[in-house]
């Protein structure tokens, strides 16, 4: 479970005072939840992900993580560009104390990077990067996955595989995804929220959320 109680976050903008990302947000994310958060560019989606992942701290309120949470999965985040895919997998395995070579194997199986597993990550295309990131975090077996960019799920074939894994092996895991594209949320999520001008509004129905978002 992730609990947000009265969470506020703002940035100081030079000469303009505070820019609010989140005002007094309260929410609960439970195991098995599939939550999509819709927001326009610059609405603070990535910041919200960093708050959930414990990377950034709120200005007010509390965020409690009562389950293991992945780092926010987005292009190039959590990996080192000059290291190979395999070395990145080894690094992540070491810090989270997982069996090293087993993890490399699992990532390789899932991401299907072939020879690119032994190439520096900086040479990867966006698609390869997303496969590596997802492969890494899925192999880590977190309780909750934070997907910061919808492109992080790759092309059609890969999206289907991801969906399949989420529906089978990771059925009891939570997924939080942010996007500005309603169809991403429709593909992966069961409930949705909208982040707009610092307000996080939850909806029971996906359709209702998407209709509201499109009317913004």
């Amino acid at each position: 479970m992730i609990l947000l109680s009265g969470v506020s976050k703002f940035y100081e903008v030079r000469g303009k005072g505070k820019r609010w990302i989140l005002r007094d947000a309260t929410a609960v994310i439970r195991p098995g939840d599939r939550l999509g958060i819709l927001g326009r560019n610059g609405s603070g989606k990535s910041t919200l992900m960093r708050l959930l992942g414990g990377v950034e701290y709120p200005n007010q309120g509390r965020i409690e993580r009562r389950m293991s949470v992945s780092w926010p999965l987005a292009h190039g985040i959590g990996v080192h560009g000059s290291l190979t895919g395999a070395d990145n997998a080894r690094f992540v395995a070491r810090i989270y104390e997982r069996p090293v070579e087993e993890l490399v194997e699992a990532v390789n199986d899932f991401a299907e990077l072939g020879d690119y597993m032994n190439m520096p990550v900086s040479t990867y295309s966006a698609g390869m990067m997303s496969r590596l990131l997802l492969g890494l975090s899925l192999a880590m077996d977190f309780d909750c996955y934070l997907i910061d960019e919808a492109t992080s799920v790759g092309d059609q074939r890969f999206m289907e595989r991801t969906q399949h894994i989420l529906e089978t092996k990771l059925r009891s895991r939570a997924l939080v995804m942010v996007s500005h594209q309603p169809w991403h949320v429709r593909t992966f999520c069961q409930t949705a929220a909208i982040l707009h001008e610092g307000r996080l509004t939850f909806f029971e129905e996906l359709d209702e959320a998407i209709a509201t978002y499109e009317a913004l």
Partner: protein
Amino acid sequence: MSATGWQFRRGDDSQNGMPRTLEGFRRQGKVIHALLMREMQTRFGRNQLGFLWLFLEPLLLAGAIATLKSTFDFGHSIPGVSMFVFALVSYLPYFTFRAIISRAPGTLRSNMTLLYHSRIKLLDVVLARHALEMTAVVTVMALIVVGVWIWADQPPSDIPILLTGIILLFLLAHGLGLLAAAASARWEIAERLIHPLVYLSLPLSGALVPLMAMDPIVRNMLLLNPQAHIHEMVREGFFGEALPSFYSTGFVLFWVAVVNLLGLAALRAVRPKLEF
């Protein structure tokens, strides 16, 4: 368990008190080990010299300064103490001290993305980096000791004192480095000020002139700086009786504790304010 708290390196099972603290230390050890492995890989990865450079850089700089000093013979000549070796032994610790403090802000900035992994703490990043610098300087110092022993037939006078001096130097630099990193993360201007300040501190550091050769009034003023004690300690370990030295280990330990505690507090204070 709050996100604003610092005690976040906890296990999934809720242990309390000592076991939890021990678990925290164990995890920190794992994380630092992983960071060190990664640093080696990136250094080896870029080019083969990358790793060697860690040792060559201080050695070359110290060697160049030592050559200059002994060639032009400025400074004070002491019977039985080679000017070249003196400069080498004095400049190397100073170089390391300066490098650790002035690089600390950059280390923090360029490794911010590591903090996306919630197991990696701000302190771990700096600790791993400094552990590497420490290894480099101990290795280089050992090379100098062995070199001088073989070619000049001058064994170090007291290896434990020499080593204690280097470790204290490292700890002092580590604490100041934490302060420098935290200050730079908070105020942009701090990083610009740190470089000149560290350079200007050279005359006050007591690094390049033996305190014995100084006027007692100047000497006592320099001895207010713990750094001067450390340089004297390193020289004591190296030259022993040939060069009388002035230092107090207790005084250095006191300042090491002060800057390290302040450094840890500053890092903790600055962590929630970091923007990604």
